[in-house]
């Protein structure tokens, strides 16, 4: 069998809708038997946060960041029509109505399909996140690891 094709996606955005698009493409690419990597950086890291508060030692600034950023995929806002939090509720309602998959399940399914979830170590540190605060089964890496995957990538996206 020929070598597997590769898809790499950089998830920079912390918006629910954009993350949903990223994860739908990732799941689709996995169904195409691609080796799929989602490289989470900056606000995209919020998709990997655990919902519950994890007791970790942090400085003042890091605590502020932790409070102000959404704790997990389900808490993320919309890129448009967020309406101070009403928008995501509406979207989740129509997602249910149309039997589409909400973001947390899309992430679960991506993991099930063997999509490699990577957290950018530098931005993890910048935002004051700790490894214990992020979901299990992810990897931590930097630009070199991303480029190694992307340079052999057939599909490379920045979302």
């Amino acid at each position: 069998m020929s070598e597997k094709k590769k898809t790499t996606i950089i998830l920079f955005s912390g918006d629910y809708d954009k993350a949903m698009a990223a994860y739908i493409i990732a799941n689709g690419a996995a169904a195409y038997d691609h080796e799929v990597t989602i490289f989470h950086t900056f606000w995209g890291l919020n998709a990997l946060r655990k919902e519950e508060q994890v007791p970790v030692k942090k400085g003042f600034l890091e605590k502020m960041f932790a409070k102000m950023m959404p704790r997990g995929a389900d808490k993320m806002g919309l890129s448009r029509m967020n309406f101070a939090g009403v928008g995501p509720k509406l979207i989740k309602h129509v997602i249910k109505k149309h039997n589409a998959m909400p973001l947390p399940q899309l992430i679960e399914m991506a993991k099930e399909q063997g999509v490699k979830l990577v957290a950018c170590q530098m931005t993890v540190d910048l935002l004051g996140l700790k490894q214990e605060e992020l979901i299990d089964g992810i990897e931590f890496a930097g630009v070199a690891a991303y480029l190694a995957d992307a340079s052999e990538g057939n599909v490379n996206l920045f979302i």
Partner: protein
Amino acid sequence: MNVAKMVDAKGLSCPMPLVKTKKAIDELTSGQVLEVQTTDKGAKNDLAAWAKVSGHKLVDMKEENGVLTFWIEKA
């Protein structure tokens, strides 16, 4: 047609019909036929494109009362 496995993806939206089809076809051996039922209109192009690129053969397709049925032979 000798159908080895059936996937019921009716009512499900993208990307579920594709993901379920892919999972099911992984469980078949070469030459076996998978039947997929879906109500997702996008699946018409989706599954045809996926079968083509993955090397599987789209043997037949029909549309009846809003239900799309595909028969895919595993490569």
